[in-house]
């Protein structure tokens, strides 16, 4: 029987939401790790019962949890994230050098074909890899050690490596995105990296089209067409048709091109979703109306999706890792809000309904599909 499992990370624990393929009736499990911040949890594509969760708190730092039974039970694994060598410095908010300090794991990206291999994007921005199911972690220092590393600066949310994308066609190619450094690409499985930000334009930095320094909020790829990338930047929705070598703007008729998440329809590589947010100082939807915008043309032309979403008095935000799609025949789209709602659409965004309404603020949403 087909079905989906939605993995939700919140400010006060993790929740697992399950349904059959109709996506009408949901079972809610949680809170797991109650009271802790769960920045992200994600399942292995090679073994859907293998899940990794990033659990952290200001008091007790980082914990990594692993499940081998689809979230029914969990156990803590390795939580030692040590930068290779002398960590050195990056720029602080005031431009002074600041030592690299590990704060938390923002994002796990399990390998496409090995359940025991998983990448972790961390704050302060760095990339780690485990090849033993999360028991031990080793930095891939080529990213942080890039010539530009000493000039990277944190965004308002910290200097986080929040997006990791593994190219399923060009094996060894991967992308990472850092706020506020930009997008980086490796073609050798993460050993060496180079910035791929040509075409980005950011008014908040001294050199608006600099090689690095852009506050990239999220990038997304359709696995069947990995040369095309979509990006939600601090401001601007962008697209690359050449694996990040160059970018052009596709904001088109969006009411605002500020936002955090961006995702691609599971079966239509030209169908893209964003959630426009008023501005960098007003982190809520324009006019109090929560609207997902969908483009069926790969950007440029966008339509608001409103059915089932609150169209008045709505002042929530949707964080960068809090949108995901399933891969059932009729693509499902999911997102979570800072107000604790998780909305689902079983018809590619045409209509929406809340799965849950009153969770703690949602930090991340991932979906696993059972075909």
């Amino acid at each position, binding site marked *: 029987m087909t079905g989906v499992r939605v993995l939700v990370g919140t400010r006060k624990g993790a929740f697992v939401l399950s349904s059959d393929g109709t996506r009408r009736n949901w079972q809610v499990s949680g809170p797991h790790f109650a009271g802790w911040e769960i920045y992200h949890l994600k399942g292995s594509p090679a073994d859907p019962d293998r899940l990794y969760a990033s659990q952290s708190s*200001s008091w*007790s730092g980082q914990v990594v949890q692993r499940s081998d039974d689809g979230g029914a039970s969990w156990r803590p694994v390795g*939580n030692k994230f040590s930068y290779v060598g002398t960590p050195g410095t990056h720029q602080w908010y005031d431009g002074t050098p600041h030592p690299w300090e590990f704060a938390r794991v923002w994002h796990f990206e399990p390998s496409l074909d090995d359940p025991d291999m998983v990448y972790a994007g961390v704050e302060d921005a760095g990339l780690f890899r485990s090849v033993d199911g999360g028991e031990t972690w080793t930095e891939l220092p080529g990213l942080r050690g890039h010539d530009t590393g000493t000039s990277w600066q944190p965004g308002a949310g910290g200097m986080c490596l929040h997006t990791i994308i593994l190219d399923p066609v060009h094996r060894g190619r991967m992308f990472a995105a850092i706020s506020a450094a930009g997008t980086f690409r490796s073609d050798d499985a993460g050993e060496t990296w180079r910035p791929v930000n040509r075409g980005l334009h950011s008014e908040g930095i001294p050199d608006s089209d600099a090689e690095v320094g852009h506050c990239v909020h999220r990038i997304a790829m359709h696995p069947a067409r990995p040369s095309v990338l979509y990006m939600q930047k601090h401001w601007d929705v962008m697209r690359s048709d050449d694996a990040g070598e160059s970018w052009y703007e596709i904001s088109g008729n969006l009411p605002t091109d500020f936002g955090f998440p961006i995702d691609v329809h599971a079966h239509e590589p030209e169908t893209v979703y964003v959630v426009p947010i008023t501005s960098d100082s007003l982190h809520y939807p324009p006019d109090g109306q929560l609207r997902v915008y969908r483009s069926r043309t790969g950007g440029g032309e966008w339509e608001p999706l409103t059915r089932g979403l609150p169209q008045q008095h709505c002042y929530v935000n949707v964080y960068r890792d809090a949108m995901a799609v399933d891969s059932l025949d009729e693509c499902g789209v999911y997102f979570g809000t800072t107000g604790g709602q998780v909305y689902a659409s079983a018809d590619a965004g045409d209509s929406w309904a809340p799965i849950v309404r009153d969770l703690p603020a949602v930090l991340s949403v991932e979906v696993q599909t059972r075909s």
Partner: protein
Amino acid sequence: MIRVILPAHLRRLASIDGEVKLEVTGAVTQRAVLDALETAYPALRGTIRDHDTGQRRAFIRFFACEEDLSHEDLDAPLPEAVAAGTEPYLIVGAMAGG
């Protein structure tokens, strides 16, 4: 036998029910107790002290016998009452918002 009391979130993390009782060989210092605690419960590594530096995490405090030992030398002897097990060594999550 040294008695250690942990905050609830760390007890849940390490699947600990109630007080922890530890055997410490040699001098009973904060470092020796913390080392023994982390050896007995590896899930606690990194949650009380930083993995690399061994520094107490900023929002964690160490109390015993109504004294705050958080800033004391980790290699100084703990009070006799803690070493004898009549008083517990408390690892406390500092009061803060959230």
